[in-house]
């Protein structure tokens, strides 16, 4: 490593290298973060002239009292709980299976990862067609095993499930890759030692693989939770610019979008963004606290 000490001259030089990135980041990331927090407290705001005539907690009170926002939070939580655990477990299983084979394993990786590179909007159109109640593939397959047709996209009882299934399908590949890397990094000596100690393959799995994979499992869960809390594109595209039937798929970001884009309630939208930030922060902290007890580094 270099042991030079920073000087005024070297700092100026570094600043020149950092400048393009700094200008963009400060204008479009750091300032907006501060601005969002401030905006959420503006109660009378004229954005054309950027004049604030009153501040207070009104926006948060409005959110607290808005049944639609409650619905958005509820739907988002159901979505997160529906998507993340299943994605983590399924991708772990697939990664474990892929790790056992050599022949065709490259082909399988390519296939499982494919949804990740495709446009969410375009693939949501395809799923919209798959979920078609009369001619869709889903109901056709269900019909083969004797299940009656389901109105996936028009029945509020099923539309959130439809969104969850599609999202699991789209997210699997990314997590499989991370698990595969994690499996690759496990030192083979651990398995040999366990074998010498007489552990069978099931015991080796539970006592070697699972604990040593726990940092990846943690990473995948945190990534998944954060990503799922921000769900928007899928909803918009799957339901053709609607938050599902009877708002059954209204999520927090969709709520933010509606308040901001459709209703021009900028400050209320900003408040819902701030709420989302703290919700994600809280859940991430809980996960980190849990991981300190259960993740083996």
């Amino acid at each position, binding site marked *: *490593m270099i042991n*030079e000490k*920073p000087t005024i001259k070297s*700092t100026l*030089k*570094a600043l020149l*290298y*950092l400048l*393009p*990135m*700094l200008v*963009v*980041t400060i204008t*479009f*990331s750091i*300032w*907006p*973060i501060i*601005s*969002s927090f401030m905006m959420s407290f503006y109660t009378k705001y004229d954005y054309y002239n*950027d004049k604030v005539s009153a501040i207070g907690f009104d926006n948060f009170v409005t959110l607290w009292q808005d049944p639609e926002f409650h619905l958005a939070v509820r739907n988002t939580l159901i979505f997160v709980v529906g998507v993340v655990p299943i994605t983590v477990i399924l991708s772990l299983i697939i990664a474990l299976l892929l790790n*056992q084979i050599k022949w065709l394993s490259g082909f*399988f*990786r390519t*296939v*499982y*990862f*494919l*949804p990740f*590179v*495709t*446009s*969410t*909007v*375009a*693939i949501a*159109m*395809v799923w919209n*067609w798959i979920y078609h109640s*009369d*001619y869709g593939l889903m109901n056709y397959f269900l019909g083969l095993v004797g299940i009656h047709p389901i109105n996936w996209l028009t029945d509020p009882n099923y539309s959130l499930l439809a969104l969850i299934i599609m999202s699991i*399908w789209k997210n699997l590949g*990314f997590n499989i*890759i991370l698990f595969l*890397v994690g499996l690759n990094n496990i030192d083979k000596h651990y398995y040999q030692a366990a074998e010498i100690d007489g552990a069978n393959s099931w015991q080796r799995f539970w006592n070697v693989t699972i604990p040593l994979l726990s940092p990846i499992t943690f*990473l995948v869960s945190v990534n998944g939770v954060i990503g799922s*809390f*921000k769900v928007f594109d899928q909803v918009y*595209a799957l339901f*053709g610019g609607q938050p599902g039937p009877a708002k059954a798929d209204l999520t927090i*970001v969709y709520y*933010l*979008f509606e308040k*901001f884009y459709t209703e021009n309630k*900028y400050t209320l939208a*900003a408040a819902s963004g701030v709420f*989302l*930030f703290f919700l*994600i922060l809280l859940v*991430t902290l809980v996960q980190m606290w849990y991981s300190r007890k259960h993740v083996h580094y």
Partner: protein
Amino acid sequence: MAKKLSKVIIYVLLSVGAITMLVPFIWMVSTSLKTGPETIKVPPIWIPKVLQWGNYIKAWNAAPFAQYFINSVVVTVVTTVGQLFTSILAAFAFSRLQFYGKNLLFMIFLGTMMIPGEMLIIPNFVTLSKLGMIDHYAALIVPWLASFFTVFTLRQTFQATPDQIYYAAKIDGASDWKYLWTVLVPMSKSTITAVTVLAVIGSWNSFMWPLIATNSENMRTLPVGLQAFTTDSGTTYELLMAASTFVIIPMVILYMFLQKYIIAGISKAGLKG
């Protein structure tokens, strides 16, 4: 014997999974080549009697997809090149140069990665409308010209480059600038390829911001245009699937050619981050 049997079971399970992953794509392409009446046949037909390649031309002309395509290409290329340029410079400063406040600045940037980007949309919209950039290419490009994810990944690679190479270049009289572009960047080709491909995919597929930042039809990118097309065209599924196919195809081709870089990039950034 038991070992052989378990191998067979593994292949069967993986194949079932792979088919599940592929069915939506197959169904998309299959539908895109059907006639209208064929799309609503029960039970569904997988291979149409006569392949209706004309659907692709019909879909392409049913909306200004050529314009959308150009917009997507321009936005993706400029965003990616710009992002790469700002990130390479910043990553070099973080990995090689000494300056006051380095760690603090790095922590601030790491912190911004934790913020949900959706929060930033409102202030960014306000800023860009003041600058008169909404509904122009600038609005679709400028906010994305920096990516801390890219800086972070490149910094990892730059740091792993042996110091001796740097000092050897210095002794040969190379400036930092020259060392960066003629030695370090070529040496880091595979990481740069990885972050480039990820940036291209992200930019090409992005939806929420282009939806918000464009008003007029001729400024739409492909995903926004495709979304508008479905609302306008109703339920002609064969055309819709043809349109979805040509939105998806460029990234699938890119992925097929560069997948080893993409996967390496994700593992590198994902694990360290």
